[in-house]
């Protein structure tokens, strides 16, 4: 049935009880419903509700139509549970649907192609999911960040709201903070990476709504990525070296059968009310080394940038960006997993590079999330190491 003007093909006619034409437009008061209708749909068995919602999800598979799947998730608790089951995580479906998906690992076998637009005047950065094959034709907004300069560091406040990146914004979801020299950065997540983990059901065929446990972790800013920039042996004449310690992702995540933390529910918070947590996890999972730094006992995933090769003919350093980066820049990089022995994996997990004056592409995949990827890319804008 069409509630919009001009809609024609799918029509349930005017036979809805107690309704009369004209059609209702988006945002107008809802349909008048009689009591008989009200009670009957509420008793629809979950498997039939699932059948209906799956049909909606299949039809509205890409943005902007995907917003109607999001709408179904906002109807009531049981609908939300069904929709979350159906849409699955980006790791499995390759799609971003609900806002929490920006904090969930990307697809396993291919990257999600996004782009970042920089605004130098307002010192803001906007991340979009690419919707077409063209590099930066059109996109679905994902995250925004604004840079704040402080006496001893820079801070980028990251928000789900394209326009509101203030510290008091209710859509604050994390931040990036640099050290004084702009060589080390920390990405902070406003919620614990394991928050709202769904427990698996013992009866997989019966849908009784998602059961969620919120682990007893206090609200706070959790450090999830530690980023370090270094000059390489050639100093500023060579590409800089980047190392990212993914505090929330175990090294086993990139091994066969490995998994990465996948939060299931987003919590919005106000930056001012969140304390900074010194480390992730409980104290028992950390140990102090000789210089007093804290290290997690379980090995964390470490990412390093893929070393470019010197191209004699072109007289420059080259990386194969597969057409996704078109402008030479010191900011461009590709990150791969590196184990404790320094062995690098082949698969590029995060790629970032310039395609226009203030336009950059960002491609990320499992086990990294859009939020973490965005934070890492922001640091690339900020670091003072090496001149451009």
């Amino acid at each position, binding site marked *: 049935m069409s509630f919009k003007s001009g809609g024609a093909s799918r029509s349930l006619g005017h036979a809805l009880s107690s309704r009369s034409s004209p059609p209702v437009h988006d945002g107008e008061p809802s349909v008048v419903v009689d009591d008989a209708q009200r009670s009957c*749909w509420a008793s*629809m068995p979950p498997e039939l509700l699932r*059948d209906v919602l799956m049909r909606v999800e299949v039809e509205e598979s890409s943005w*902007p139509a995907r917003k109607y799947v999001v709408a179904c998730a906002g109807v009531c608790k049981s609908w939300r549970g069904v929709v979350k089951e159906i849409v699955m995580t980006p790791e499995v479906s390759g799609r971003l649907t609900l806002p929490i998906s920006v904090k969930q690992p990307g697809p396993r076998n291919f990257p999600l192609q996004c782009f970042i637009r920089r605004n130098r005047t307002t010192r803001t950065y906007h991340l979009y999911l690419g919707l077409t094959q063209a590099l*930066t034709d059109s996109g*679905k907004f994902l995250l925004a960040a604004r840079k704040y300069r402080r006496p001893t560091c820079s801070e980028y406040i990251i928000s789900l709201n394209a326009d509101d990146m203030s510290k008091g914004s209710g859509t604050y979801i994390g931040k990036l903070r640099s050290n004084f020299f702009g060589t080390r950065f920390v990405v902070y997540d406003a919620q614990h990476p394991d928050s709202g983990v769904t427990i698996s059901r013992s009866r997989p065929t019966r849908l009784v709504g998602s059961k969620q446990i919120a682990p007893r972790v206090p609200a706070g800013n959790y450090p999830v990525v530690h980023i370090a920039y270094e000059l390489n042996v050639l100093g500023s004449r060579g590409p800089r070296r980047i190392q990212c310690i993914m505090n929330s992702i175990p090294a086993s995540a990139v091994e066969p059968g490995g998994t990465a933390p996948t939060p299931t529910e987003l919590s919005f918070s106000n930056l001012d009310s969140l304390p900074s947590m010194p480390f992730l996890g409980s104290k028992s999972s950390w140990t102090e080394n000789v210089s007093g730094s804290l290290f997690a006992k379980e090995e964390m995933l470490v990412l390093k940038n893929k070393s470019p090769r010197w191209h004699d003919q072109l007289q420059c*350093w080259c990386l194969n960006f597969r057409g996704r980066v078109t402008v030479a820049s010191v900011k461009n990089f590709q990150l791969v997993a590196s184990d404790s022995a320094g062995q690098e994996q082949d698969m590029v997990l995060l790629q970032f590079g310039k395609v226009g004056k203030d336009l950059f592409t960002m491609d990320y995949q499992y086990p990294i999330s859009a939020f973490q990827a965005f934070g890492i890319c922001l640091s690339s804008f900020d670091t003072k190491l090496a001149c451009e």
Partner: protein
Amino acid sequence: MASEAVAVKIQEGVAVDAVVPAASETSAQRKILLKSVEGEEFLVDELFARGSKMISNMIDDGFTEGAIPLPNVTAPVLSKVVEYWKHHVGKSETDKDAREFDRAFVKDASSSVLFDIIMAANYLDCKPLLDLACQAVADAIRDMNVEQVRGFFGITNDFTPEEEAAVLEENREWSNALTVTGNGQKESNEGGNIVLP
């Protein structure tokens, strides 16, 4: 098998005296008696009645005497279901008449009738009809926003205030901060491989 004279109500509402056929008659002529929850009886060709897997199984299990009771289905709904069977059973999937019937079937159905048909098709185990009705509902709600969906289904919002605030944010900001045209500025591809000049 003794035959009995019973009064049955056919689709058109005309009561006639009919004879329940003996089981020894061929299935092409055999008719099955179905009884709705109100006690109304429908005489239906066995061929059509087998449009329901549940009924089909009952027939195969030897249920041939008297009426098959369907306590979960009302007479108006059952009459619609029988109509559906008449247009579909024994026909190919691409039959034009059947598709035309389907279009009209859902077009004139009110949302509460659609609900009844879904429940009946589910109970009677008639998958094609269930698919048709579920798809009609999905088509209806596909382009609706949250309020409209709640109104259509008569669903009460049971979110906590915090959850409701998050839902609003989701639907207002996340869903609608959408498609943005890039500046279309694509510089020439210098081999796509350059890191540093």
